[in-house]
């Protein structure tokens, strides 16, 4: 009875929900593919042929490619760093004995709830002091490792690496660093991949801090989109062409890695 296939009603409700989830993406493309008349009465759900014309206007209005490149540089660097440094600290917390381990890890867990975002004012003052205001370093350096990453890797590595394996590596004369690199890191790969995907998406979407510290000449994609929208008259077929273009990279990532992302969300729920 529990294994019975569900009724059409279940599929219908879920289908409606998924359609609603996808609709704003479609709407963005729809407006971008026509002109503003679709918003002023000539309502339709059929795309027009103006998308590339509007996209070209986006490229003329904001430094789109530069912003795209910057977003990849920032998110890529942050992702590699978060994964490596979190795995390193997570490995130490999970598999090495040292004085103060419990207290230090408790500290990491506590900081999960600390809204560090609220420290942006001194952070901005510091960046201005270093001459980093407007530079990509300013959005990369503060995000190089996260409490969540350390917590996540530690929880995974506790079970994933048998203590005997670490001991055997030590017996063979491996330093702790090599033990981490040859024993810890390979075992951490699945969790590291998920952490990588989540970190990348989070960094890609980051807005408040980049908006504060970057400028219109050297923006990330999100900051560039904000500039596109902030004129006194909002030309929606232009702006939504920008949002459509900006959505394409994450949609590709989602189509390729969606299965893993779903697994990551569900696994995180059980572990956390």
């Amino acid at each position, binding site marked *: 009875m529990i294994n019975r296939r569900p009724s059409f009603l279940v599929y219908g409700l*879920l289908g409606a929900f998924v359609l609603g989830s996808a609709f*704003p993406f479609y709407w963005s493309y729809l407006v971008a593919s026509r002109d503003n008349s679709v918003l002023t009465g000539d*309502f339709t759900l059929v795309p027009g042929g103006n998308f590339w014309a509007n996209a070209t206007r986006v490229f003329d209005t904001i430094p789109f490619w530069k912003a795209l490149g910057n977003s990849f540089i920032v998110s890529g660097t942050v992702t590699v760093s978060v994964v490596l440094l979190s795995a390193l600290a997570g490995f130490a*917390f999970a598999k090495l004995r040292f004085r103060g381990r419990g207290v230090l890890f408790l500290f990491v867990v506590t900081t999960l709830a600390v809204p560090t975002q609220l420290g942006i004012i001194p952070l901005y003052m510091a960046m201005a002091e270093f001459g980093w205001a407007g530079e990509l370093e300013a959005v990369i350096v503060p995000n190089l490792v996260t409490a969540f990453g350390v917590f996540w890797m530690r929880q995974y590595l506790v079970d994933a690496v048998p203590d005997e394996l670490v001991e055997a590596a030590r017996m063979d004369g491996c330093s*702790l660093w090599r033990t981490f690199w040859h024993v810890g890191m390979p075992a951490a790969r699945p969790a590291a991949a998920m952490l990588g995907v989540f970190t990348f998406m989070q960094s890609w979407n980051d807005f408040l801090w980049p908006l504060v510290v970057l400028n219109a000449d050297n923006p990330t994609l999100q900051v560039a989109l904000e500039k596109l929208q902030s004129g006194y008259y909002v030309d929606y077929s232009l702006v939504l062409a920008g949002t459509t273009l900006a959505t394409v990279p994450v949609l590709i990532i*989602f189509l390729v890695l969606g299965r893993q992302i779903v697994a990551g969300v569900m696994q995180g729920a059980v572990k956390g």
Partner: protein
Amino acid sequence: MTAVLPEVGRGREQEPLPQPARRYRLSKLDNKVSPYLFVAPFFVLFGAIGLFPLLYTAYVSLFDWEVGADDPAFIGLDNYRTLFQDAQFWKALFNTFSIFVLSSAPQIVVAVAIAALLNENLRARTGWRMGVLLPYVASLVALTIIFGNLFGPQYGLVNTVLSAVGISPVDWQASTFGSHVAIASMVNWRWTGYNALIVLAAMQAIPREVHEAALVDGAGSLRRFFSITLPMLKPTLIFVIVTSTIGGLQIFTEPKLYEPSGGSGGGAEHQYQTVVLYLYQTAFQGLDLGYASSIAWVLFLIVIAVAGLNFLITRRAVR
């Protein structure tokens, strides 16, 4: 138990004798120092980028500190005195909580319902799960702009649909409640599916036997949902509420971009300005860093208080 290996050098009997002794010392040093080196990057970075700026925010809040000022004047708690009489601050605080309630309550109800549907024995299971998670990967800025358009005052699609079914159009942006609904919709749209998957994971962790036993006792599916599933989801639901509280109280992107002209006032009458948006406006457009710091610090205390309260409730609920 792993790092304390006093006889590490022994593994290689064929090597000459002095070397193991030296290696033993090195290894001992490695055991003692390396774990701290491994965790150091987190603590150094968190201290420099997370903790220090937060504490320094409290310091700045005691000064009349304008951007670029050479010699800010110490004014004690004056910023806080002004803040507690600042109608715009109270409005922002009200808006933040109002948007938070409008976005969390319906979201959790719908997320549980969607999770229950996903928990059925579906064909193409992963496909449905991906479909539900789709909004989560969308760029927040892009989606806020799209929703701003959908909830546009004159020609927005939401109003078009309302008119089509005979309801008079709403000026979403101008009214307090309307703008809160529009912004809450953005939050709900983005996070409901994500939370549904978290709830689904918790549902699947409920042992089958419990359901089967209830089935034998003649409990229908609705009865089983309310008497078994829902109570067993409680810790997960509280987890979802706690995480969305910490994020929800700091909401910024949605109200910032809902105002199309690039302003940060949160509407003509600040009807949808949130606390972080007010902070942003004060610090980076008003250039009053001292006053903005007092806003940040008060919000910090509120977030900590709410998170702490949630934590206490969680502990009691789990027990």
